């Protein structure tokens, strides 16, 4: 034993007694004892991380210790290695990697040793901690012996070691990305896992652990699934596991099948017949947890085929990697009857229970997906079921029939559906009023909503389902249903929502106009119902009101105008309430959010029409006053809604918004400082842009504060990255508003733009999401450049920008060379080239001539198919020809 180890050993012994006690105290029922223990642990971790980790892993590894202290020790270890927030996570990773190699080796040895413990919870906790460490070390090419030593455990005789090892392998596959592991080791892991799943494995705990491990390991099996023999073998073992006598194994095996269906869709053709038989058997006869997974397999296949077919019918620029095998279409004659059967297995009151999820619901959802996948083909398979059951005395039949009809309304063509809907509509309307069963009424209202969503609207070319004759009847029924029990009323609101949406392009005269007053009145009454808190009825009523207002026409503008003081009064009332409990405060926040959202829609409607704008703006003072008071209530959602409404108000009010700035500014700054609730920050950044356009140079007095905050936001690594591109765009908005006054911010903003530009030009995006973000960032940077350049145009200070011109041109050249920008970046980029020439004129001529952007890039944009790119390029060409020849 080396000196170093001896030292740690001594240390461990001296601490261990304390640690057990502290860990037990940390779970005490007595709050003060618990708090004290937590403090001690925190202190220990901060003062002596190596000792802390060693003590905890020793605790976990020691079989004599109480189970509770061991489990908590493992949990704290795990939390010392991983966190949810990215920056905290990175910090913990770095701290672990920086530890002394001896300490790390000890901790790891203790953890591996724990895998042989007779105590199940200790094994399980330990396997999670091992996986976390593997997640940190394996990508760094450290701990190369881990997988080997785990695999050697597999040949142990004791089932508990085997089980714990397989569990560890499963967690490991979840934590480590496939690229970090050699194919050779992948093969060994898969071999061990699949062997553990085999029916010949006598211990069901081992078999279950293996099956769950395979679920996580599937992402590693690309190569193996491409090899026919290996794939056949894996598929056979998975299918066999679905027949295990142990229900947990059957469920885990179906979960594997679901994962395979999405990961290896294109490899499934030869197994589909067998899989159908297995899943059908499970759906019809197995326990619900298993049946649900079997059903999920088909939903998942639908998801895949919908995606592929979408890509087929999209612009063809996107390459579909996988051809569609039309599995659903082939399985249709057998699949649909199976799904219809499940629809009859509803539970009572499933519509009232938000968490409910059962086979009938899963089957219904799957049926809807199947309809979207195959379109018209599903109609003849479902309609006989609908016709047979819709009038039966037993409510389950009527509900199932209605649901089946509702679920096929998306997917099949309007041509196919319109005649059916024309027949069904009257029946549905009368069922919504007369059916004695709430469940049937709920589904009927939902189905009506689907009819209006998919078969109503000016985009359709088929004969309209809603005519002057039946419009009034439909409204009468819906408004009446809004007085029904909350879940039915909520669906009736939903139907009205889509009914209104269908008339958004109705022009000057909407068929809803004659009933507008009644509709608005009914929705307000509904929102005030005592029981409007149930089934999200209040939300539905307000959001429907919003849609009704948004889609209304000028002829009903007076009624919308009357709504303004009503909604403002409601918002006022929420602010007058006295002291509230937490629960009441939450309800109040929800309501305030809804009311601010409603005002936002009204502002856009009335502020957007010349005929109403002036009259509407008479309310602006009061409204702004209310919004400012709303900001005093701390709730992120409410702040978002109020900010959005203020942005809309700024557009409507234009430069006269300036009078609110003195009071509003503090909340603007508060929003910009809100790192935690980054959506609030993002929305506020957008509102700054709105204000710039509304106020123009009247925003100048506030710019020092705003710019300071925006620059802080950019330098923060806590702020969510999605907020950064809009901040750059916002620079452009500010510069465009204040012109050459932007001068004093140049020395701060330009270096930030430059470094962000360098970063975004040289990022090689590894996935679509990353590429998307990179392009947003580029767009933001370019918009900033355009705004700044155009802001300085015609100013005597134009030459201040000259030093930045070479870098801007380099950035454009780099984007052009990179070849991975999207059309919108292309449009903005070529526009910047024009702005550079436009503002800097002859002085920039030689620089521009040297850059490739002015030649190939411009030529490419000039011949672009995208009219916006081309328009931007035409402008750049004119601006350059002036600068170069000038």
């Amino acid at each position, binding site marked *: 034993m080396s000196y170093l180890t001896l030292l740690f050993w001594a240390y461990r012994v001296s601490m261990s007694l304390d640690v057990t006690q502290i860990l037990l105290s940390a779970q005490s029922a007595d709050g003060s004892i618990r708090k004290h223990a937590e403090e001690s642990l925190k202190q220990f971790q901060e003062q002596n991380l190596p000792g802390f980790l060693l003590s905890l892993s020793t605790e976990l590894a020691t079989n004599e210790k109480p189970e509770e202290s061991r489990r908590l020790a493992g949990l704290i270890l795990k939390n010392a290695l991983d966190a949810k927030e990215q920056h905290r996570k990175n910090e913990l990773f770095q701290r672990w990697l920086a530890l002394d190699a001896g300490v790390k080796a000890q901790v790891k040895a203790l953890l591996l040793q724990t895998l042989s413990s007779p105590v199940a919870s200790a094994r399980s906790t330990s396997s999670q901690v091992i996986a976390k460490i593997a997640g940190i070390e394996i990508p760094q090419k450290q701990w190369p012996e881990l997988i080997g030593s785990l695999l050697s455990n597999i040949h142990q005789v004791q089932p508990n070691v085997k089980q714990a090892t397989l569990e560890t392998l499963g967690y490991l596959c979840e934590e480590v990305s496939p690229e970090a592991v050699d194919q050779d080791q992948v093969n060994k892991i898969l071999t061990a896992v699949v062997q553990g799943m085999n029916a010949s494995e006598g211990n069901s705990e081992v078999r279950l652990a293996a099956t769950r491990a395979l679920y996580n390991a599937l992402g590693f099996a690309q190569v193996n699934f491409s090899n026919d023999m290996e794939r056949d073998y894996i598929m056979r073992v998975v299918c066999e596991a679905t027949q295990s006598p142990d229900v947990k194994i059957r469920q885990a095996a179906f979960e594997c099948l679901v994962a395979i269906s999405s990961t290896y869709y294109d490899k499934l053709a030869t197994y589909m017949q067998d899989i159908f038989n297995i899943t059908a058997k499970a759906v019809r006869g197995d326990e619900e947890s298993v049946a649900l997974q079997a059903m999920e397999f088909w939903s998942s296949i639908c998801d895949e085929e919908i995606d592929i077919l979408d890509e087929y019918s999209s612009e063809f620029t996107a390459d579909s990697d996988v051809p569609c095998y039309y599995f659903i279409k082939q399985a249709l004659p057998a699949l649909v009857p199976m799904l219809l059967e499940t629809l009859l297995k509803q539970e009572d009151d499933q519509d009232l229970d938000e968490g409910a999820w059962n086979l009938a619901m899963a089957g219904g959802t799957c049926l809807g997906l199947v309809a979207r996948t195959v379109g018209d083909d599903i109609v003849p398979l479902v309609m006989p079921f609908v016709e047979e059951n819709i009038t039966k005395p037993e409510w389950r039949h009527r509900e199932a029939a209605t649901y089946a009809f509702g679920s096929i309304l998306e997917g099949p063509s309007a041509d196919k559906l319109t005649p059916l809907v024309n027949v069904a509509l009257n029946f549905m309307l009368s069922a919504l009023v007369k059916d004695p069963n709430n469940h049937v009424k709920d589904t009927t209202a939902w189905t009506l909503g689907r009819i209006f969503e998919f078969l109503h609207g000016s985009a359709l070319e088929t004969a309209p389902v809603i005519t002057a004759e039946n419009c009034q009847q439909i409204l009468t029924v819906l408004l009446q249903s809004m007085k029904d029990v909350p879940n039915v009323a909520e669906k009736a609101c939903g139907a009205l929502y889509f009914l209104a949406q269908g008339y958004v392009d109705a022009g000057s005269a909407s068929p809803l106009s004659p009933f507008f007053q009644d509709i608005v009145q009914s929705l307000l009454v509904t929102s005030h119902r005592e029981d409007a808190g149930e089934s999200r009825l209040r939300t539905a009523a307000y959001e429907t009101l919003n849609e009704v207002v948004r889609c209304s026409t000028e002829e009903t503008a007076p009624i919308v105008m009357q709504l303004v003081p009503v909604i403002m009064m409601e918002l006022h009332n929420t602010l007058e309430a006295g002291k509230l409990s937490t629960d009441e405060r939450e309800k109040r926040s929800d309501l305030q959010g809804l009311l601010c959202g409603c005002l936002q829609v009204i502002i856009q409607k009335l502020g957007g029409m010349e005929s109403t704008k002036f009259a509407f703006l008479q309310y602006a003072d009061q409204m702004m006053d209310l919004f400012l008071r709303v900001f005093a209530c701390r709730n992120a959602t409410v702040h978002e809604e109020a900010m959005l409404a203020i942005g809309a108000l700024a557009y409507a009010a234009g430069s006269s918004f300036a009078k609110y700035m003195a009071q509003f500014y503090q909340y603007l700054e508060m929003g910009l400082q809100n790192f935690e609730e980054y959506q609030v920050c993002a929305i506020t950044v957008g509102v700054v842009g709105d204000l710039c356009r509304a106020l123009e140079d009247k925003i100048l007095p506030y710019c020092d504060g705003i710019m300071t905050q925006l620059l802080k936001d950019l330098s923060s690594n806590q702020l969510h990255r999605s907020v950064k591109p809009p901040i750059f765009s916002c620079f452009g908005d500010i510069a465009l508003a204040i012109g050459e006054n932007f001068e004093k911010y140049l020395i701060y903003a330009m270096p930030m733009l430059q470094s962000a530009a360098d970063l975004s030009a040289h990022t090689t995006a590894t996935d679509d999401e990353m590429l998307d973000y990179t392009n947003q960032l580029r767009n933001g940077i370019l918009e900033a450049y355009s705004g700044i350049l155009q802001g300085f145009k015609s100013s005597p200070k134009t030459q201040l920008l000259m030093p930045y011109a070479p870098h801007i041109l380099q950035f454009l050249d780099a984007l052009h060379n990179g070849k991975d920008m999207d059309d919108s970046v292309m449009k903005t980029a070529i526009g910047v080239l024009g702005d550079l020439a436009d503002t800097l004129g002859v002085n920039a001529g030689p620089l521009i001539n040297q850059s490739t952007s002015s030649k190939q890039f411009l030529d490419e944009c000039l011949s672009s198919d995208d*009219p916006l790119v081309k328009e931007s390029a035409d402008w750049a060409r004119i601006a350059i020809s002036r600068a170069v020849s000038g």
Partner: protein
Amino acid sequence: QSPTRAYLAASAAMPRVPRRPSDEARRGAYKPPGVDAARSRRRREDRLLALRRRNRDAGLFKRRREEPSLTPAPVVPPPDAAADATAPPPSSEPSSPPSSPPPADALRAAADAELEGLSEMVDKVWSDDTATQLEATVQFRKLLSDGKNSTMIKIIRADVLPRFAEFLSRQRPPQLQMEAAWVLTNIAASDYTLLVAECGAVPRLVELLESPDANIRHQATWALGNIAADMPSCRETVLDHGAVTPLLAQFKEDMKVSVLRTATWALSNLCFGKLPAEIQVKPILEIISLLIHSADEKILADACWALYYICDGVEGGIQDALDAGVCPQLVKLLMHASANILLPVITSLARISAGDDTQVQVIVEQGILPCLAQLLARNYPKIIKKQACLIVSNITAGSKDQIQAVIDADVMNHVIVLLKTSETDLKKEAAWAISNAASGGSSDQIQYLVSRGCLEPLCNVLKYQDVDLVYTCLEGLQNILVEGEIGKQGNESVMNPYAQFILENGGLDNLEELQDFDNDAVYKLAMTLLERYWDEEVSDDANLPASKDGSAENVETVPEDAAAQPPVPAPSADGTE
């Protein structure tokens, strides 16, 4: 069986993490609520974002339109062929077609050198098993997506095009048709369109336009569009196989915008050049007259180009277009914000304005003149203004009533400003417009033109070395001077008032310089004018070289002088109402 290659294909894609079967996600899909607070909020936010983006673009756009006051004013622009081409060749969406592809045989020979790794794929394409055929076709399609010429050459060398053409006729599996059409589309988008046109695919693609599968119809449309975008012989192949009628049938369906775009684009490619006499234009125009109401810019632009091609390339096309009722919308589109729309619209109208007087009258009655006044007054691209002037000149070439309509719409003011300030080629169009008005106008109308200050810029135009321009200008001056003679008879003053004006503004010097002009017609007309209206001056100069013979040295020096002194635009041309 070839597991190795399957592995390569699979490993190229990032392995996806298995999707977690999530009850929660599915539960959300069960009776999804129409009104969901979070979703509604996002939608509201998205609408505001869209509004914000529009406003940001509009702000920038406005600023860009403003003339930079400190930048030196534009002089003669660099030669720019692209901006001067009125009608672009048919566009090719997936990639640009070649100017002149080499003949088919030469291509195959040139590609002989490169061939590797394809043999297996080729074998699979020729196998008898449909699944294998499909697999290989998909592989070819993916291979083609890199867009490299070298890949294209290898595939062509493998001589598989006829096989893909054959797959187009297979009813099942349907995705084989789809994939084969896709492969051919991409090849047709390359430099080797001719090979696709000749491999027997065209009649089958035309058949596929009637496929029950919308995706396949779309793909076939795309492929045919690419083929028609190439040289005339390719387009003729497509037309000969009767593609027009089934293509037009596409438009009657409930189609997606993306499909409609492709179909419109393909239709415009088919209409390019001279349509054969046996093609019925009326049904095409019926569709176009609907398409020009589209809100989608791509569709709109392609539809307008198609309209132009028909007006330009079909005998009686202008009348057919007018009969189809396109005029009101076409004139409305003149106020469209996008230059991509404006160009085909105004080019079409210019073509129509070259028709006979009754045809011209139709566009006048549809209110084209106020639109033209706007176009000429604002900062539109030069190419648009040129077309606008061309239309004005065609209208002023008409009856006195038509000239009066132009004057009433306040168009001439803007034309005169352009004549003063714009670049040579635009100036020439403006000169035509004024000259035509001067030659056909009544005496009141001519007096109006002079009172608006057309004489001074017309005289300045004489300094240019452009034969046509100078001659047009001289004709205009002549007409004005004739009018001045009539005025002179009224009173007893010695001098024709317009001749006096020209003299005072230095126009006479320019006229005298034209005696050295290297063109007989210009020389003669200038001499005629000098003799008739300023006879004492001419008699003074009678001893000057009376003909251009032997004066070549002078001719060499004059143009340089003249060209070095372009007029400087007025500081705010747009401000003058």
